[in-house]
């Protein structure tokens, strides 16, 4: 048998064949703006370690690795073809998703065990090695996860793990003072507050011993902001200098459950989340909404879909990992959210994904050599263009590989996201109604399925509580991971087979390994029962993990199941059939409901479940709010309405997102009804997406979102605008607003001062008021409250407070759905307004105004929901041919989008008593543009008489958008080109 050695194989395009990867790399490199390569040649590099003889290596190269039609394989390191060679390989320990599959194939071919590492080689023409290495770091690799070599990488052997350190370590904290506890918390990456450290100290003084390392880590994970949402669940004292008419005045809030009005006029709110967001849901459920099946307790909120099925929805953020490694951060963000759905109840099948990104303006930033018109990218940050490109690629590669259609999303641009982008990932699942609840029983085995445990992802949960700084890429690179969607897909296949097993569901509870890894999953499932865990049983990616690392690792693609003893074998058989690894970590249920952690029989930790779940000290947070009246200067005219419209259509918030949408498979699973792009040539921006969750049924599920940021003067209004926008978007496709459930995602710059906390309180109360008014219960939510970046020179860039409302709702028969594209010449176009619009704070002002935009608009909580209900009823009766919500850019942008999507024109007439810029470009809540046939016109006007309805004009076949009195006349094809271009970034670099 030959000796074990590392064999290197390069595969590149055959002479005469194109090299799309090299060409894309060249374009990306040129876009960086530094040295310009003339050409880049690409090659795949495969390093294979194993006892293989030459014949086998040749066979692997020619039969497996190279395509005989397109490629050519060569062994070893070929000589340079250009002026510089760059190789990019994963750092040791970083997930290399292709490697595992290649190992499987080589095993099937040769019966020889091998280990594989994959890399990429780029031969640069026209630039030297230093320039090439600089470009590689900017656009082809990320030093957080990649090693960059300037010559072919030919290792003698792969790094192997070292023997495990199995010493039981204690942490001395019984005798530390507050400041020493604070230092311990920060240096150990625990991110616990001094109060929390003191509570732990008290507990251990009572126990009469120092905490062991694994116990302290367990508490830090369980008590992290990420896992327990302690800010939103805190008791808050809120005071404000606001008029009695304010929606948060003591008089309005008095008498609401959980809220006490104090003598000094301030109010105290017990558990902010429970008294606002969740209180609305419980009030609505108490009232007459009987379709909420599980709210705020499981990994996702669940509502009834039909008599036999339920649907669930969860939206997460993955902001900090995406700042350091956008591709891996976004991919593991969607991967983690998908696992939440798989881990809801007794498992739901993921059927749709959503994504919403907030990033800095890509064209307004440059590295050190920026000219006057651009900002400098702060040290420690990636360029916003690269961030957006890579997060899109991350969502694409994970969602598409999992076979989950990504069907809804948004992108919002603001320069204060430069160091801390926001990446929201959502997932919807469907499940039988009898799978809505699961509960572990004493004696159930703790079975972990899926990926192996590695050192990757250590301290992700606590990392999310930290504030990003320029040195985070060095300090926290271990919290950043690359996902392996195929492992997750296999695991999903196993779980659905086990759930639907002929002998009944093979497990009694399931959850995902997310933040905190096994420590959170087992801790949550065993909260009432206790658990005994044998950490040496977890399959590891490599040797050398300490028991503590195994326990808190957040390695991806793992699920934990509680399995009755007599069903373990049946589950194991399914795992084997699908090549999914599993392990039996121990059992649920101990005498005193304790968590007992062992490694090879030795006790490493012992904690009362009570301390983990109820030991977190109560905190009183002070919150204050002072209305800020920012100055507002009159606009600067762009010259003409036409120029205004062109400028708005090119604004990145409004411009077409087709470059992103088309990279996502939005039709896999075959359930699509309304796609994200609609209209005569499928390029109009749909307000919502609709799918069929249950085969053979005509009942549809729509999905949409509303996002609002701190442009508003008041987080209260901002939140209502987001709720209203989400509902509007759903109504525009025919979804019944009476069957809509929503989710909240707070992303705040920090809650370390009273004013920020006051904004959070106002947003939370708005959630209550909005949900009650629209009768849209919140069923799940999530918060990310430390989104700021501190630069090298100590400047802190805080994101604007950002509220994402995601919603899904039901339409009984999808054939009643409508889309936003204009349908027919001769039809009438109407503006239906449930609220006034204003140019202040509008996109028009952002493009052409002088001031930072601030939106003073209000939301009418009577008329807003009423107009949604009436429009839905009219749509259901078939009287509305198309509908589109008036949002970013105002009425003229909405009409232009409808016209472009339908390849039709509109002859417009502005009402005489209006001001052109206000009328066409003002923005506000509860406004819709609809199209109807002439025969339905008077009936519609009559049905909508309670609202402000304006007849905007008539659809024409000439493809022109005209308003003669305003001297406005545009060709829709020209407008469409303007709208399609800004975010059409063309070919990918990967």
């Amino acid at each position, binding site marked *: 048998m030959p000796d074990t050695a590392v064999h290197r194989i390069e595969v590149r395009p055959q002479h005469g064949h194109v090299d799309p990867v090299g060409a894309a790399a060249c374009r990306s490199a040129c876009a960086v703006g530094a040295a310009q390569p003339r050409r880049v040649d690409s090659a795949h590099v495969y390093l294979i370690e194993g006892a293989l003889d030459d014949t086998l290596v040749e066979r692997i190269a020619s039969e497996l690795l190279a395509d005989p039609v397109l490629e050519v394989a060569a062994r070893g390191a070929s000589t340079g073809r250009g002026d510089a060679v760059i190789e990019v390989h994963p750092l040791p320990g970083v997930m290399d998703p292709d490697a595992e599959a290649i190992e499987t194939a080589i095993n099937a071919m040769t019966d020889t065990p091998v280990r594989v590492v994959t890399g990429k080689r780029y031969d640069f023409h026209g630039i030297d090695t230093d320039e090439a290495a600089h470009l590689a770091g900017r656009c082809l690799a990320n030093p957080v996860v990649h090693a960059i070599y300037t010559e072919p990488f030919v290792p003698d052997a792969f790094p192997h793990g070292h023997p495990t350190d199995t010493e039981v370590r204690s942490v001395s904290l019984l005798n530390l003072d507050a400041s020493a506890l604070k230092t311990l918390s920060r240096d150990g990456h625990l991110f616990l507050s001094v109060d929390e450290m003191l509570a732990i100290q008290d507990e251990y003084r009572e126990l009469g011993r120092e905490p062991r390392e694994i116990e302290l880590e367990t508490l830090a994970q369980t008590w992290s902001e990420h896992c327990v949402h302690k800010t939103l669940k805190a008791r808050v004292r809120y005071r404000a200098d606001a008029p009695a008419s304010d929606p948060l005045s003591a008089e309005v809030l008095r008498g609401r459950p959980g809220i006490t009005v104090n003598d000094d006029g301030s109010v105290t709110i017990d558990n902010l989340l429970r008294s606002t967001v969740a209180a609305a849901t419980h009030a609505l459920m108490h009232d007459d909404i009987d379709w909420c099946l599980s709210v705020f307790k499981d990994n996702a909120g669940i509502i009834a879909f039909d008599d036999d099925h339920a649907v669930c929805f969860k939206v997460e953020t993955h902001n900090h990992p995406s700042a350091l490694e956008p591709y891996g951060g976004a991919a593991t963000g969607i991967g983690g959210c998908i696992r939440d759905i798989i881990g809801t109840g007794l498992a739901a099948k993921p059927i749709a994904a959503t994504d919403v990104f907030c990033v800095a303006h890509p064209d307004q930033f440059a590295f050190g050599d920026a000219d006057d018109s651009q900002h400098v990218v702060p040290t420690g940050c990636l360029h916003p263009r690269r961030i957006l490109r890579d997060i899109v690629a991350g969502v694409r590669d994970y969602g598409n590989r999992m076979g989950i259609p990504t069907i809804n999303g948004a992108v919002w641009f603001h320069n204060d996201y430069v160091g801390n982008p926001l990446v929201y990932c959502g997932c919807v699942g469907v499940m039988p109604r009898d799978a809505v609840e699961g509960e572990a029983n004493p004696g159930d085995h703790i079975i972990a399925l899926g990926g192996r445990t590695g050192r990757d992802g250590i301290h992700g949960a606590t990392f999310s509580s930290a504030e990003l700084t320029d040195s985070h890429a060095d300090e926290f690179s271990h919290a950043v991971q690359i996902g392996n969607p195929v492992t997750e*897909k296999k695991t999903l296949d196993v779980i659905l087979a086990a759930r639907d097993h002929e002998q009944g569901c093979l497990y009694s509870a399931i959850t995902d390994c997310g933040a905190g890894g096994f420590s959170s999953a087992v801790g949550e499932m065993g909260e009432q029962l206790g658990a005994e865990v044998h950490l040496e049983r977890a399959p590891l990616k490599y040797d050398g993990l300490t028991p503590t690392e195994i326990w808190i690792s957040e390695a991806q693609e793992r699920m934990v199941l509680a399995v009755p003893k007599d069903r373990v074998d049946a589950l194991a058989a399914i795992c084997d059939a699908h090549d999914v690894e599993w392990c039996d970590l121990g059992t649920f249920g101990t005498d005193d409901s304790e968590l007992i952690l062992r490694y090879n029989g030795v006790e490493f930790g012992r904690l009362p479940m009570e301390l983990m779940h109820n030991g977190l000290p109560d905190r009183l947070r002070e919150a204050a709010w002072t209305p800020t009246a920012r100055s507002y200067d009159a606009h600067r005219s762009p010259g003409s309405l036409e120029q205004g419209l062109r400028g708005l259509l090119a604004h990145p918030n409004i411009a077409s997102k087709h470059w992103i*949408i088309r990279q996502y498979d939005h039709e896999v699973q075959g359930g699509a009804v309304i796609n994200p792009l609609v209209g005569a040539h499928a390029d109009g921006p749909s307000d919502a997406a609709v799918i069929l969750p249950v085969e053979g049924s005509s009942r549809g599920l729509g999905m949409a979102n509303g996002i609002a940021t701190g442009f508003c003067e008041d987080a209260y209004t901002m939140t209502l605008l987001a709720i209203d926008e989400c509902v509007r978007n759903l109504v525009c496709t025919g979804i019944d607003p009476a069957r809509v459930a929503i989710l909240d995602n707070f992303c705040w710059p920090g809650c370390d001062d009273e004013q920020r906390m006051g904004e959070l309180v106002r947003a939370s109360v708005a959630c209550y008021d909005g949900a009650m008014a629209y009768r849209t219960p919140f069923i799940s939510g999530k918060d990310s409250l430390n989104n700021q970046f501190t630069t090298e020179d100590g400047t802190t860039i805080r994101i604007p407070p950002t509220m994402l409302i995601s919603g899904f709702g039901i339409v009984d028969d999808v054939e009643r759905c409508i889309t936003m594209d204009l349908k027919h010449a001769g039809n009438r176009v109407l503006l239906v307004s449930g609220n006034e619009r204003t140019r202040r704070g509008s996109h028009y002002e952002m493009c052409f105004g002088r001031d930072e935009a601030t939106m003073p608009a209000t939301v009418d909580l009577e008329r807003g929901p009423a107009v949604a209900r009436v429009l839905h009823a009219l749509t259901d009766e078939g009287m509305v041919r198309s509908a589109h919500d008036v949002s970013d850019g105002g009425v003229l942008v909405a009409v232009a989008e409808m016209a472009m999507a339908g390849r039709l024109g509109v002859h417009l007439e502005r009402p005489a008593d209006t001001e052109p810029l206000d009328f066409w470009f003002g923005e506000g809540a509860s406004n819709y543009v609809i199209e109807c046939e002439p025969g339905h016109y008077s009936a519609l006007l009559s049905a909508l008489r309670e609202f402000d309805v304006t007849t905007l004009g008539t659809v024409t076949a000439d493809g022109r958008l005209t308003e003669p009195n305003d001297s406005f006349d545009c060709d829709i094809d020209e407008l469409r080109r303007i709208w399609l271009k800004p975010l059409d970034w063309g070919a990918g670099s990967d």
Partner: protein
Amino acid sequence: MPTALIITTAGTNCDRELARAFALAGATPEFVHVNALRRDLSIMDRAALIGLPGGFSYGDAIAAGRVQAQLLRAVYPAFRAAIERGVPIIAPCNGFQVAVQLGLLPGPDAGMPWPDEPLEPVAALAQNAQASFVDRWARIEVPADTRCVWTRGLRFTHDTNLLPVAHGEGRFVVASAERLRQLRDGGQVAVTYHADDNPNGSMDSIAGICDASGLVFGLMPHPERYTRWTQHPWWTRLEPSSREHEPPGLRMFRQAVAHAAGVEVAT
């Protein structure tokens, strides 16, 4: 009803819609994992139809479909036997990528038997010309002279002659101009994109091909995702008369299921 055997693996993800399309067309879908098939080739004897579904088998490591094609080499004798029995096989998207690399497509020259070992690949689905994944609908046509049992004789109206594509590696390439001519002249081009609507830069706008018998059909578009008219990308603007026709995807499956009626299967 004839059994349609759908071969799944790690990363298969279009198996459900493929099963649905078979069921709508009158077949009974059944799933089998490649691991089970490798252990017992006789499972294939039950099939009156076979589907190689879309997805990202093994994450498309190395290249799309490469690892799954390698694993299916052990199953090749069962494929050969099935084709000799007259079993229609459909391979959309990732299935097409697998079938080409397994030598099932374009298969042996007309009149030649299937060899004992898989044929060396002579075609490939290379990375899209634009070097990125694309999801959109493309206009399609069925060549009048095709031998393909799934598509021959099908004609579509001007507003429904579409199929969805969703792939990153779908640019159809053959090894030589001579081969390309052979495919064309031999009626092995089963479906093409309209020349001005080629989504990936495929040679001669070829979207799908069949073997010389017409039984084995591989294509990049997804006919299984166009079996009801509310899947049409702009169905809300279709005239009522257009909604009366069966969608093109479903018609392909119906035609093959009808063809499979006479196929003998093991019970």
